[in-house]
């Protein structure tokens, strides 16, 4: 279990993450206090927000002097880029649902995600996305009592 600590450095990414989350927690607390100081409003919210802010101090301090250990397994930049591409494509897909319709959005996202995932054969790229989209759209139309906008179907 003993790993040699070579040196300490600032772990920027997790530091930014916890700081952002603690910032949101603080903003939320201030907003809630703006609504009312009544205990019926703040009973659980306020103590929890204080706890989160307190823990942020601990965590941020830890991330400022993160021990760099040997044998740390990290993804290559190319791999990180692929994940980010997938996250981005998924975000665009969600935005596109109402904008261009559920059908087109599903088709487009499935195609892009297949390419990101490493599929290069033209036939599956051509056939799978539209067939999958047809199945999903018709299936959910049958099952779900809510209307959703589509442009082709």
């Amino acid at each position, binding site marked *: 279990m003993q790993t040699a600590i070579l040196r300490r450095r600032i772990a920027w990414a997790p530091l930014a993450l916890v700081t952002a989350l603690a910032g949101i927690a603080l903003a939320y607390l201030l907003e809630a206090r703006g609504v009312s100081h009544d205990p*019926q409003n703040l009973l659980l919210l306020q103590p929890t927000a204080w706890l989160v802010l307190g823990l942020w101090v601990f965590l941020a301090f830890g991330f400022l002097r993160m021990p760099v250990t040997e044998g740390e397994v990290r993804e290559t930049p190319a791999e990180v880029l692929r994940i980010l591409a997938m996250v981005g494509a998924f975000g665009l897909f969600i935005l596109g649902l109402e904008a261009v319709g559920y059908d087109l959005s599903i088709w487009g996202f499935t195609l892009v995600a297949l390419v990101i995932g490493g599929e290069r054969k033209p036939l599956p790229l051509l056939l799978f996305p539209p067939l999958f989209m047809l199945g999903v759209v018709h299936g959910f139309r049958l099952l779900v*009592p*809510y*209307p959703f906008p589509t442009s082709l179907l």
Partner: protein
Amino acid sequence: MTDSIHAIPRRRALLLAAGAGAALAAPGIARAQTFPERPITLLVPFATGGYNDRLARAMAPFVQKHIGQPVTVVNRPGGGTVLGNTFYMQQPDDGYMVMVHSAGPYIPLSILTRNARYKADDFHMINLPSRDLTLAACATSKGINSIDEVVQRLKADPRSLSIGVQPASADLINMALWMQAHGIDRSRVRVVTYDGGGPARTATAGGHVDVGFVGGEGFLPIKDRIKPLLLFSDEKSTDYPDAPLLTDHARAAGFQPQSVDGSQRGFVVLKRFVAAQPERYAILLRAIEAATKDPECVSTLGNQQLATTWYGPEASNRAYLSSAALMERYADLLKQA
């Protein structure tokens, strides 16, 4: 879509020629109409399984029978009906979508407590067959015998009894007005809030709270476990024939009885649509009226404990608007649970 756009002026001309009254009455003109030429949608601003959803699904085949087009039900729940109402406001005024809604109290409440951007007046009631009234009740095991006993104990010590109610509801307004009339300081009473009629009833029947103020209809399956103390109404209810009425209670205590209906549910369209498309509105109105009065519909819905009374638009709108006005007047009572 394009079809209906250039179809409107032609129909307007026809309508002008015939006169509005004649258009409503003359079946000849109705037959000349092409409306409806595609399926009608019933929009329910609640999730599946609730009263409105069941009402819409049960009515659909009968409306279909009388309007001659398939009728489907879609749900658009959320935000205390704000999402469904807002969605409905964005639809074209073509009459192909009708809401089945607990219009009162949800539309006025969403305006007063959720800052919704429409007005109570934007909606037009076709018929509100179902009305649910606030019932003050306690568990039989509590040993509370009458509403006067509740008043007495609360007057002596406002903290002596706990009260269960939904926040931002018609029940809360009724409870608040009732306490005000008796001079009971609401801020000192132990008021416990439940986000839904179901939880509030369970808490009442389970004795978690001493007295519950909640819609009476939902209590029917557990009628044996509760004692109805006061019904917020001016006429006897067939469900609770023994429950004292607010009017009698108020007369005895010497105050003006005031209450709002717990729920007014039924068919709702937009006022905008009624003004723009009177002849289409007339067709919808006739079909819904015929469906509601259809003996088969009456018996089928009756079996499912769904209401089929026909009050018509005039009475329904009057009831809806007066309860909305009352809610607006007492909006400040809603602000604090």
